[in-house]
């Protein structure tokens, strides 16, 4: 059973699982019917915030639950309070239902590296054991921490269930529509003056593969998943060839509000701190214990995403430079 299939990431995970002949039936659950083609996935309209989900699990004799229903954007969920409701209460209800279902043997949770927060006191690379240094009181970051808390509680109460928590770096790719991809798609990209965040990305195909990998193998534990290497924010924007607008940090929240009103991108305060300080996660365990090798590095994933956008204004400047170089070389 896959939750959150009406959104793109969930739908792709469900499709990928359905394409695997070793998996019998894939059940997709969401509140609204999916717009994307689901293929072999059987869609069940149910709300994970509601105890009805327990009946679905019991009736369909579900043995594996893949929870991709954590929402990152308040806009798509219809406001922050609704987003929190879906993320936290939904997870609670889902886990309560799983706990009552003896047939459930595996739980895969798509979490996020936002659980580590972002701040000036962060180590360069977070390993899975490290606690966040900067606690966020907003948005996805807080929800992700709470969701993981409930998942840990569930793992304690049901030690027979194999629980994999996948802390994924920001998904990026031509098909991903997230605050971060919308941010990079803006014609002029605002950044915080005087800071340059380190970013890691996970290509959307790798993300889907990782969910599949965790579903078909027994890999209990918490794993950081990200592409190799880091890009700095300024470097990423330069690769896009878009002009940057560097704004002092005290204007960040008003800029975010203006950008939201202009319907360009949707920022929460935790995303602003992320784009200020950045974050890096250690992926040693992803290779050793989880046994997963992403196909795209951070830079390759970003390049793939870049191809889906047009070229920006700065690309012209660099082609002029290229021409100048050519001339100097005779």
């Amino acid at each position: 059973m896959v939750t959150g299939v009406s959104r793109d990431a969930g739908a792709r995970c469900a499709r990928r699982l359905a394409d695997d002949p070793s998996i019998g039936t894939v059940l997709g659950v969401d509140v609204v019917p999916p717009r994307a083609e689901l293929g072999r996935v059987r869609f069940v309209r149910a709300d994970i915030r509601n105890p009805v989900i327990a009946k679905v699990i019991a009736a369909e004799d579900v043995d594996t639950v893949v929870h991709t229903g954590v929402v990152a954007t308040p806009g798509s969920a219809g406001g922050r309070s609704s987003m929190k409701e879906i993320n936290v209460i939904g997870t609670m209800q889902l886990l309560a239902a799983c706990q009552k279902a003896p047939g459930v043997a595996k739980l895969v949770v798509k979490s996020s590296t936002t659980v580590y927060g972002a701040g000036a006191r962060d180590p360069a690379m977070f390993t899975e054991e490290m606690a966040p240094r900067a606690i966020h009181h907003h948005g996805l970051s807080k929800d992700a921490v709470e969701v993981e808390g409930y998942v840990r509680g569930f793992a304690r109460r049901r030690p027979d269930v194999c629980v994999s928590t996948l802390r994924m770096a920001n998904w990026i790719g031509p098909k991903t529509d997230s605050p971060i991809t919308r941010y990079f798609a803006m014609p002029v990209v605002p950044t915080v003056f005087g800071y340059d965040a380190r970013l890691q990305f996970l290509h959307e195909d790798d993300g889907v593969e990782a969910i599949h990998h965790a579903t078909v193998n027994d890999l209990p534990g918490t794993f950081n998943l990200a592409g190799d290497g880091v890009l700095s924010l300024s470097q990423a924007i330069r690769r896009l060839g878009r002009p940057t607008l560097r704004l002092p940090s005290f204007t960040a929240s008003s800029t975010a509000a203006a950008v939201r009103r202009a319907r360009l991108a949707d920022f929460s305060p935790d995303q602003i701190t992320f784009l200020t300080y950045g974050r890096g996660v250690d992926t040693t365990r992803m290779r050793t214990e989880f046994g997963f090798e992403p196909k795209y590095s951070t830079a390759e994933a970003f390049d793939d995403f870049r191809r889906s956008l047009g070229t920006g204004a700065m690309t012209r400047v660099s082609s002029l430079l290229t021409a100048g170089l050519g001339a100097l070389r005779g």
Partner: protein
Amino acid sequence: MADADVIPIGSGGRPGRGSGRRTTPSAAARALAGPGGRTKKKARVDKRPDAGETPVEPVGAVPDVDGPEAPAGFDFAGLEQAVRGLFGEDGERRVAEWLAFLRRRLTGEYELDEFGYDSDLTDQVLLPMLRPMVEKWFRVEVRGIENIPSDGSALIVANHSGTMPLDGLVTQVVVADHTGRPLRTLAADLVFQTPFVGELSRKGGATLANNDDAERLLRQGNLVGVWPEGFKGLGKPFAERYKLQRFGRGGFVSAAMRTGVPIVPCSIVGAEEIYPLVGNIASLARLLGVPYIPITPFFPLLGPLGLIPLPSKWLIEFGEPIRTDDFPDGAADDPMLVFNVTDQVRETIQQTLYTLLMQRRSVFF
């Protein structure tokens, strides 16, 4: 576009106007460009300096840039001649390198390591900017450079002084110039909270001083520099110059022990005199959340002029490495042993400081 008229440019490496025939690129240009076509058109399309190793980028996708009339108003033949006339043959290579660098910066085609260290920027901009300060202003004299291992990791531990952490920057330049290896420094969290300073420090190879980062850097075989006195050493009054403060909590020793890396003590003489700290505006410092606001004989009296460091003569001596790989397992978790090694390092640096001070003829010469 293949059969378009070829506009010959260049003068075959000799000064003067282009001869009008097909010319060969200059030696410098050949070295940069590698094998490739010789016409202007081909140079634009194929001869990007790194077309071979970097991912294909959508420059070609921009309409009308690669066309013959694209850079309208830009006389590149004239540019080439102007460059050659101004800087000579070697200058042409340097300008070409600079343009290549500028182009990499504009397109973002450079690599950062996981700590955010930008070797391209550091080698091309940051270190060359600091070098005159090291060589001309402070006239740094370096001793015992052979004590820094030429490969493998080492932890360089130095005394901290001078109100502003210029000693860190100078040591970084010195190590880079003498060993050819970058020195990765560990900096206080205040550095990363400060706009620009934090950004540049990360790009220059610094990371937050904590055990996780230090051990990570050491495991990857880096030279790591640490100033364990921290702000206590930097902001001590001028009267206490060359008296080492407490060496933190010995975290650097346990990091070295866990990774089995030698500790190289480093004594820096001269940094104490660059901004003689005679007072501290404590209330303003508390208000701004910084450890101190310095009062020196020239600051804030002379305003920004007071920010120019005094041109003291610097001596930097790297001492014999202290091995940490022969301690038993779990030594890093033995606080007594860690304190002892910390004291040993501290004593070594203090003694070397006294010796160097005895040898110094005067503060400024």
